């Protein structure tokens, strides 16, 4: 059983917060034990009981008064100390200026639109639900939402930040080890708040630039007749009204961009790993896997379904 993600940091910012969690937990646990010991002794000690309940020895009261007063002051000092420890960690996390990689993350009801902006329009990467980041570089996310409030949270890398319609929040983090870090939407956003997962794939520079170049290219043309039939099926079914595949006439913006669907590792915002089987099951009955999602249940013939899945799996 590995450590919980928040205590298994994979970046300097997460490391700072993990250190903070350990120090706070340690101190609070110590205080709790002290209070429990005091309580236990208070309960067990045989204090002689005078008949008249109001008879209280003033000397003892005065002494205990000093102890309680002292403890109160001590609590105040501890609390002030913790406040400054917190400020220290806060400065290290939120004080980061600039950023080597800028990513726009736009929240939708129940999936994440991810854009890597660039000066030339054709070099803009549009993908969904998964972020590729170079290892060791400061990544700055610009977070906003088109519908309700979501919250971007990948515990291994950084604390969460909300995506609020009408506002743009920023979140900066660095991943210092390659790996796949999972996260989930942390602000209740409706029926499928549960299946709104996000994945951050940290990789070294070479892989990152290769991935980015792949993403910028237009969709792969169908290589086999089955894929060609699948493309035809895609363009003649309701898929085009919501999804876009750059390089074809499909330009819907309601759903995720499918130009490089096969290059992603999950579908439906982390509901399932992407394989031929899960993709077919998802297209055939999205409400089965994610009840309440905005993808409608379409009546597709078996042939259409199979060729469609072939075509989509070809969109590396």
């Amino acid at each position, binding site marked *: 059983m590995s450590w919980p993600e928040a205590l298994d940091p994979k970046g300097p910012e997460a490391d700072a917060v993990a250190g903070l969690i350990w120090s706070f937990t340690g101190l609070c646990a110590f205080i709790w034990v002290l209070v429990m010991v005091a309580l236990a002794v208070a309960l067990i000690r045989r204090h002689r009981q005078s008949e008249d309940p109001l008879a209280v020895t003033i000397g003892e009261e005065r002494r205990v008064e000093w102890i309680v007063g002292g403890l109160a002051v001590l609590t105040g000092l501890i609390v002030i100390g913790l406040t400054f420890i917190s400020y220290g960690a806060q400065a290290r996390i939120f004080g980061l200026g600039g950023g080597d990689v800028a990513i726009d993350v736009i929240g939708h009801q129940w999936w994440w639109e991810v854009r890597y902006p660039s000066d030339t329009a054709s070099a803009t990467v549009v993908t969904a639900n998964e972020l590729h980041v170079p290892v060791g570089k400061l990544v700055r996310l610009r977070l906003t939402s088109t*519908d309700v409030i979501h919250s971007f949270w990948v515990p291994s890398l950084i604390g969460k930040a909300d995506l609020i*319609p009408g506002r743009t929040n920023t979140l900066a983090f660095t991943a210092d080890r390659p790996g796949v870090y999972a996260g989930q939407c942390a602000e209740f956003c409706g*029926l499928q708040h549960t299946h709104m997962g996000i994945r951050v794939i940290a990789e070294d520079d070479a892989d990152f630039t290769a991935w980015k170049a792949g993403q910028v290219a237009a969709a792969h043309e169908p290589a086999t007749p089955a894929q060609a039939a699948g493309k035809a099926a895609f363009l*003649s*079914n*309701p898929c*085009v*009204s*919501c999804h876009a595949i750059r390089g074809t006439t499909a330009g819907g913006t*309601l759903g995720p961009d499918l130009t490089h669907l096969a290059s992603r590792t999950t579908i439906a915002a982390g509901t399932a790993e992407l394989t031929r089987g899960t993709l077919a099951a998802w297209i055939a*009955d999205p*409400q089965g896997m994610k*009840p*309440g*999602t*905005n993808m*409608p*249940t*379409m*009546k597709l013939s078996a042939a259409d379904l199979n060729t469609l899945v072939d075509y989509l799996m070809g969109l590396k």
Partner: protein
Amino acid sequence: MRRLLLAGLVALSLAACEREDREYRPDPIVTETPQKIALTTLSPGDTPPITDLSDMGAQYTANAYHVSQGKKWFSAFNCNGCHSNGGGGSGPPLMDDKWSYGGKIENIAQSIREGRPNGMPSWRGKITDEQIWELAAFVLSMSGNVTSDVANGRNDDMAGKPPENMTPQQPPQPGGQVPKSAESPQ
């Protein structure tokens, strides 16, 4: 006294109005709801035109979830491109009481499915049957023909016309003005 309370509660729960159910998946899933509608009241002989309507329409106009989804599709599929927010533009207005092809929800659904001359595209195959019904229910609510406690409130967008739950009801009347595109030579 207790029996009275119990009976009251049971009666209340039976009247569980379906107006709030989130039906994610139409039952049954069909590519197209079979129905026969009449665009006009004229028909040979003295019998009115034969119509065979399914009860789907009533189901959709009484369910707040479907009407709300309809509003989402209205902007998502760019219906407001031609009809704007109901006031009309290159397409006819939808929030008035004039209906060129019939004001019942089945007629509106047919207009969406078949498309209409002078620019209304046919959405058959481009959106699912359920979405067509949801759009039709929403279009009906634009002229106040859906009860105000089912209709939508305002959108989180710029305010145009009053929201559908504040639109006074305008019972559908036949006939609408001929769109500009029809005046140009065909």
